[in-house]
């Protein structure tokens, strides 16, 4: 037996014990049956701190099987700390294949972005959620917010959006923009930029949301109505960028600002690194792109 096999055998497959998985799996089924409703679950301590995606990790651990291909992104990037460590975690405890390519993944765990590449039927998107309750900053008492959801009393949320308009002349909420699911539950789409809200609407992929510290799981099944809240005279609109990605010249994608020096120099680049690398591999060049060819990271097979 090699050292690696010994390491894996120390844990149950995918880290969680079977009773925990069953409990989470039951919560996921209820979440799918009641789209947008936050199902309480007995969140476990994970070997990472709260705020690092313990909810998403527990959801992924409960659904993942040996044949899955996992992609993990953090603000759209495959190569940032959170994404790298969660990917390494599942490689170690579940020995699954991992990838950075959106189209090849069966499960995509994400922190605050939806990939630019369109998702397809059969893919599962797992969101890491810090505060699942969209009404929490308006009403701190759980007993009250629960009653508001029960009575479908969402007037307060519209007041909040209206106050934005009164103060700023437009709805100033740019991320965690509240959505209404199938005309019933108001839901926090997790702190994704509102740019991604339209992608949730009638998405062919199943979307699962896990909040570890707050102990809630919720879901949006495929082909489900996801409507961003707005007003007739102030309709919902997404962010627009006045320049394309500086590396791959992509337009109509979400861009991150990158500071280049301490003299105010900056560039806007795709937040979805996989999308950007693919475009550059296809020969697209932005204004600041290096001419050298980028070596694409390939799918790593299971050991």
């Amino acid at each position, binding site marked *: 037996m090699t050292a690696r096999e010994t390491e894996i055998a120390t844990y149950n*497959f995918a880290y969680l014990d079977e009773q925990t998985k*069953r409990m989470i799996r039951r919560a*996921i089924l209820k979440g799918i*049956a009641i789209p947008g409703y936050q199902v309480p679950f007995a969140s476990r301590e994970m070997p990472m701190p709260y705020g690092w995606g313990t909810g998403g990790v527990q959801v992924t651990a409960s*659904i993942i099987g*040996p044949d899955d291909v996992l992609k993990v992104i953090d603000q759209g990037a495959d190569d940032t700390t959170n994404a790298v460590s969660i990917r390494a975690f599942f490689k170690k405890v579940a020995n699954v294949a991992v990838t950075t390519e959106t189209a090849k993944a069966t499960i995509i765990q994400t922190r605050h972005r939806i990939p630019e590449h369109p998702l397809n039927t059969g893919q599962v998107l797992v969101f890491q959620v810090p505060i699942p309750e969209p009404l929490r900053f308006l009403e701190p008492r759980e007993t009250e917010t629960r009653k508001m959801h*029960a009575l479908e009393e969402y007037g307060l949320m519209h007041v909040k959006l209206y106050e934005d308009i009164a103060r700023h002349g437009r709805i100033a909420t740019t991320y965690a923009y509240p959505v209404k699911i199938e005309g019933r539950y108001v839901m926090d789409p997790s702190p994704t930029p509102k740019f991604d809200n339209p992608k949730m609407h009638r998405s062919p992929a*199943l979307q699962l949301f896990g909040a570890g510290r707050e102990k809630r799981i919720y879901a949006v*099944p495929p082909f489900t109505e996801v409507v961003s809240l707005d007003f007739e005279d102030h309709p919902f609109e997404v962010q627009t960028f006045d320049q394309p990605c500086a590396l791959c010249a992509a337009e109509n994608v979400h861009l991150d600002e990158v500071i280049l020096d301490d003299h105010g120099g900056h560039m806007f680049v795709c937040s979805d690194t996989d999308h950007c690398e693919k475009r550059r591999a296809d020969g697209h060049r932005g204004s600041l792109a290096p001419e050298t060819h980028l070596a694409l990271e390939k799918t790593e097979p299971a050991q």
Partner: protein
Amino acid sequence: MDIATRSIEGGFAEPVFNAQTVFRATMDAMARPGSIQALPPLAHPPAPLSATAGAMALALCDNDTPVWLDPRLQAEASVKAWLSFHTGAPSANTPADAHFAIVANPAEMAALDGFSQGTQEYPDRSTTLILLIDDLASGPSLQLEGPGIEKTAMIAPVGMPRHFVEQWKQNNQRFPRGVDIILAAPGSLACLPRTTRIKTMEA
């Protein structure tokens, strides 16, 4: 075979991976109502509990989930013994206490509103019904729409509960409360979550 043997044998050969396979098929079926998910016979419970429904119980039930059995299953001591040996699930005294209800004879089952519907605050505290169905394709067709369905979906389960379309409409109207149904057929399964609407039923 005596009852002790029948109640101990027939569990998952590989508990971790088999449970994941069963759950994933159930999750996909719940997320895409009306889609039929194949499920090989991974569990071998005593009759009249079927392999599909038995596997479902092993994957989802444990000591946190009271299970209610319909009279046909209740009459078979080895089924109760098998379920409690493999899952540790307590038996629910009434349908309204059940987290899961396993029904071997859906055609004569009690009304859907007799099961736990959850509350308006906690609609997740409702019963999930596992109905044993002979076949998902040769009964009266049900045209489905709702979340998880791109346009419409069609299933045709045999031997559904009496006045099912009318009962299901009432179940829809109770939303967010209501029951969810897993249809367990030999070698396959399909789900009807409470959001799914049945459009028409041809005879």
